């Protein structure tokens, strides 16, 4: 589904590369965890994959379902099934969550040449998905992320994911700012979306989240490249030993 080869990237206007030859191959149905210390390039990877302005790819390639992902606009990528659950979901005053979801879903359907969903069908879909995630109807009437608690924001991200039904989910530090109960709710929501057709990249600093979202593969990101890959036991090893050893390896 996703083939990242020798990816080099930097912040526009700066000299220092943040990603320095990253390779990663993700197949449908797999869950990959990417772990690494602060500054290892985790967030940069998520932004390069979703097409945020301000990042420049200097070398390498990213193929998504055989297409050159880097050539696409962010909204094209979303319509083709890429979803980023933001580490810091953005507040949008004046746009109700429900309206936002509807505009987003119908924009994606339109881009894919599908018919727009009628309002009743849309309402039914959102109610059903929101119910499963314990998202109150009242929250859907509020402006996007405005006044939401940390847990509500992350739950709203997972709700968007459940409504938009992406093929490739990138979860950027979804555990940050969550207490253990909120973490379980969010993880349950993510697990419910696991399917043979869908892949996930779970970016995290801590092993904790991976107790609940159990990955098929764990990769250690350090100084802009993947320095070690393994199964879920690698996460436990990292939890015990910390990242110090990897920082040296990459240097």
């Amino acid at each position, binding site marked *: 589904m996703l083939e990242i080869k020798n990816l080099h990237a930097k912040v526009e206007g700066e000299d220092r590369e943040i990603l320095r030859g990253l390779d990663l191959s993700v197949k449908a149905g797999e869950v990959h965890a990417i772990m690494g210390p602060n500054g290892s390039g985790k967030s940069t990877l998520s932004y390069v994959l979703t*097409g*945020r*302005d301000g990042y420049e790819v200097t070398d390498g390639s990213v193929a998504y379902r055989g297409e050159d992902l880097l050539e696409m606009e962010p909204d094209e*990528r979303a*319509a083709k099934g890429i979803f980023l659950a933001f580490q810091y979901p*953005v507040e949008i005053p*004046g746009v109700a969550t429900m309206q936002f979801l509807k505009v*987003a879903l119908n*924009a994606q359907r339109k881009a894919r040449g599908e018919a727009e969903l009628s309002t009743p069908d849309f309402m039914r879909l959102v109610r059903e998905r929101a119910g499963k995630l314990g998202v109150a109807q009242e929250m859907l009437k509020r402006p996007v992320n405005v006044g939401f608690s940390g847990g509500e924001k992350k739950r709203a991200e997972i709700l968007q994911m459940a409504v938009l039904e992406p093929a490739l989910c990138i979860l950027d530090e979804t555990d940050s700012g969550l207490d253990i109960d909120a973490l379980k709710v969010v993880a349950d929501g993510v697990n419910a979306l696991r399917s043979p057709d869908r892949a996930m990249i779970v970016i995290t600093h801590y092993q904790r989240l991976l107790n609940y979202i159990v990955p098929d593969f764990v990769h250690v990101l350090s100084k802009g490249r993947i320095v070690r890959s393994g199964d879920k036991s690698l996460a436990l090893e990292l939890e015990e030993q910390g990242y110090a050893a990897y920082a040296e390896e990459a240097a």
Partner: protein
Amino acid sequence: MDQIVQKTAAEAAWLEAGGGLAWLETERAKAAQSFARTGLPNRRLEDWKWTDLKRLIDGAYPPLADGKGDGAAVDTLIAALPFGGLAATRLVFVNGRFDAGRSRIADENGVEIVPLAAAEQPHWVKATGMEDDPVDALNLAHLSDGAAIRVAAGTAAAGAVELCFVAAPGAAATVTTRNVVVVEEGAALTLIETHLGNATAHVANSVTEVHVGKGARLDRVKLQRDDVASIHLANLVAGLGAESILHDFTLTVGSRLTRQQGFIRFAGEGATARIAGAYLLAGRQHADTRLEVDHAVPGCTSRELFKCVMDESARGIFQGKVVVRPDAQKTDGKQSSHGLLLSPTAEFDAKPELEIFADDVVCGHGATSGEIDEDQMFYLRARGIPEDEARSLLVAAFVGEAIEAVENEALRDALTDMAARWLAEHRRSAA
């Protein structure tokens, strides 16, 4: 008597013209003298520093002598009126003259409506001229028609009253209208003012005088969508009785040059005024709103909120003056204005002025100006919303906060819809 020495073409045309209404002869003559003395304001006057009418009105616009205009253009305008059947009563003024055939008046007890051009006027219709205001002076000097509306004491008008001013004069001319609205003690009215113009470079001069009685309430919504070649000069003059409520909202989309002034005077204690507005401007449009809120008595509340969107080389201006007189203790006055600039050549200027002579008051003001938030844009696009649509959504959300002030749901929805479609429409027509 002082006279302006060097007249501009616009001033000369207005000074030479006759017109006005016969029953207002005393006020008309006084107003004509006032304009002969002041002429058009220029930027050396502090209140006009961003809107130099002497320089900006660069041609002659004599008062339109007859109101017929081009029938086909007028029909197109009538068909384009945005609020449809929303108001029970709709008075249509074509090129500044009441058009009975295109109007409908719901028969409602306690609601009295008279065209100002009628020779005989009821006792409650008065036009109170202002000292040295050129817009008001020109209005009284060349007035052709308008609506006088009275809601009798204790009457809550069931349906909204809409005043539609459509202009297609076909030549450079001035169309002058005035409305007198009296909402008596304990009465209530929703008033809609729609200004729509088509393919004409004209000057619209529009004054609305409102008198809101004790415990009465007036909700006024104004939509200014005159042609982008036109000039719109408008005054709202409001006197508010004790414990009365005025909610006023103006959406400014049209005209190349707009100067809107609001003069709000609290005459009785415990009254509330909420004045809100939004601009949607593009091209080289210039819109300037100046408000003067006079807390002449204690215990009144004023709120001003303006959300202004400027694309291309448009310029938005908001000037808000709040005066709290020595007796006006327990005044609560807040003002804020916000500009959203969609292009590097767009501009927003804001000037709050507080003149506070009482000591037990809560007054505040805030003004901001900025661009579309890139984080918000990326968030929307990462969810599959194309760039243009995302920007439209953020523009509508920005002005939405001001449109929220409109309590009538159907009106609010219609205005929200206009805001949501504006960006795509104007960029398409510019392309």
